């Protein structure tokens, strides 16, 4: 197991803090500029192709300079948390992946993991490794969608097609294993919903062989591309201290020189048993965030390979815990065993009960710290579910990162924060 050494070199990204005051999330036009009468206030969004969903930015422009900015959100609010309170624990699981529809496996896992923490149930190794594998495939998927759309917004249209070509392969793998391309609902409290189909391993191997070459291709197109460098370098700066103060996490935080990854610092699933590096870059700009994403995809491929090595040897092992009060009994028992039939009926109609208590369970989603707070009163429905959405927090940094930006840079900066509006508004 290796970890990157903490690279605490020299100069800060900028001196002091750039977080606006008194409202940390609103950039206000200076009064002397306002007095010139040349400030143009425009609505950017809510329906603009490059806002990654339905985001509205109220922007003050002085010529092409962005002098003021306020983000207005809530256009995709659908009340996930309230809905989940009305469902039994296991019927609430399908809501979780739909919150962030790009990193669905991670969202699904964070809810299931939080419930398992309350239940104190032990998950069999095959399920742990398979969850790790799918979470990492999902990380590559999420980064590909980010790469494709962000590059598209800056004019690199071909990147979108290449990224979505590989994304399609990952979705095929999800379909193979769970029957659905997205929102698979493959993680069940206690393990997996079904065993892994045999055809999955060779297909996943093929993908792992292919993917590093694909990443090389992306990097050939972008990493030293002069236009790409000019559109991303030195833009959207976020210093180490400002990033922490604004609660940034994931690639945004690691691009600001903070060596922080929950997979390393508070290992969950099988992350303490796999070998991977945490890429950290120091410059805190859009380009650094791009580099973090690219390096993370390479590391994720390595993790997937290590998981495959383990899961392949677990043929025939249980994929879900044998706790009849929580887990549905095996299908074939329903024809022969009265108890199994009763348990099946009770879990499906009433749901299982979760002991009283409250937990906060955090994982490293592709976008950063994804937390799930669940509170149970001991009954079969959640009393309260709350998601700590990394996109919601990332958007708070727009006002800080937009310092001295031009309107065209705004697209690059908002894109680099990698937000998914479904998750922002929940």
């Amino acid at each position, binding site marked *: 197991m290796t970890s990157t050494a903490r690279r605490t070199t020299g100069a800060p990204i900028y001196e002091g803090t750039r*977080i606006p005051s*008194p*409202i*940390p*999330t*609103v950039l206000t036009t200076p009064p002397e500029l306002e007095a010139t009468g040349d400030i143009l206030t425009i609505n950017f969004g809510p329906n603009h192709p490059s806002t990654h969903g339905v985001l509205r930015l109220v922007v003050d422009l002085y010529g092409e300079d962005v002098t003021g900015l306020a983000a207005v*959100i*809530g256009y995709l*609010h659908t*009340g996930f*948390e*309230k809905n989940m309170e*009305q469902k039994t624990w296991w019927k609430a699981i399908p809501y979780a992946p739909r919150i962030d529809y790009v990193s669905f496996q991670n969202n699904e896992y964070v809810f299931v993991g939080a419930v398992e*923490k*309350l239940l*104190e149930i032990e998950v069999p190794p095959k399920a742990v490794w398979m969850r790790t594998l799918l979470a990492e495939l999902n990380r590559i998927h999420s980064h590909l969608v980010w790469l494709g759309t962000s590059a598209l917004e800056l004019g690199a249209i071909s990147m979108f097609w290449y990224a979505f070509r590989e994304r399609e392969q990952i979705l095929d793998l999800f379909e193979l294993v769970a029957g659905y391309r997205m929102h698979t609902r493959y993680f069940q409290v206690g393990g997996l919903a079904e065993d892994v189909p045999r055809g999955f391993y060779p297909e996943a191997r093929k993908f792992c062989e292919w993917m590093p070459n694909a990443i090389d291709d992306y990097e050939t197109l972008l990493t030293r591309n002069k236009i790409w460098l000019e559109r991303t370098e030195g833009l959207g700066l976020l210093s180490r201290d400002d990033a*922490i*103060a*604004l*609660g940034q996490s994931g690639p945004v935080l690691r691009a600001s020189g*903070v060596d*922080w990854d929950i997979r390393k*610092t*508070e290992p969950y699933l099988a992350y303490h048993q796999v070998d991977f590096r945490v890429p950290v870059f120091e410059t805190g700009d859009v380009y650094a965030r791009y580099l973090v994403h690219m390096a993370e995809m390479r590391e994720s491929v390595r993790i997937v390979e290590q998981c495959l090595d383990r899961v392949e040897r677990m043929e025939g092992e249980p994929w879900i815990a044998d706790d009849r009060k929580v887990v549905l009994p095996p299908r074939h028992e329903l024809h022969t065993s009265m108890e199994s039939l009763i348990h099946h009926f*009770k879990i499906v109609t*009433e749901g299982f*009960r979760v002991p*009283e*208590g*409250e*937990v*906060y369970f*955090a994982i490293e989603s592709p976008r950063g*710290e994804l*937390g799930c*707070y669940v*509170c149970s*009163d*001991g*009954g*079969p*429905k959640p*009393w*309260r579910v*709350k998601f*700590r959405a990394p996109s*919601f*927090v990332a*958007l*708070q940094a727009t006002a800080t990162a937009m310092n001295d930006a031009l309107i065209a840079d705004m697209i690059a900066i908002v894109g680099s924060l990698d937000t998914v509006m479904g998750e922002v*508004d*929940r």
Partner: protein
Amino acid sequence: MPGLVEVVARYGETTVVVEPASIVDAALHLREAEGFDFLSDITAVDYLGWGEAGVSGYIGTPGGRDINGPATQGYQVVPQPKPARFAVNYHLLSISDRPRRVRLQTWLDDGQGVQTVVRVWPTADWHEREAFDLMGVVFDEHPNLQRILLDDDWEGHPLRKDYPIGGEPVRFSGEA
């Protein structure tokens, strides 16, 4: 620790409960003296009706299931009573120091406000606006306490337990 009520450790997590009046002092103490420089999340919880109604009429006893009652529905054990209606949970994390988490918790009655922690952790801005919007918790001296996810003219706070569910009135064209 200013205003400390109790420290609870459960499920491998530490919860520090403080008086609402000293939330800012407690937050500053945790940030400066204990190194919790990162605010992950603020979650407000409404405990109205906590432990009162089972799923379909059955309620257990504090000692466990009442074997003479219909034992299939509802609670098997009545949950512990809560000190007030609302809990506000601040999930803190230490990034610069050694990695660890703590939950800072304070209890409020309906209509009771709590000081904002925006000046301690700027990221609290939107978290507090969300708690205000969906749960109706008022954060005193917040620089911009408006609704964030719902419309500005929305009535009520949907995550409260007494908020009616099951649709909202729809106005059709041609109606007065």
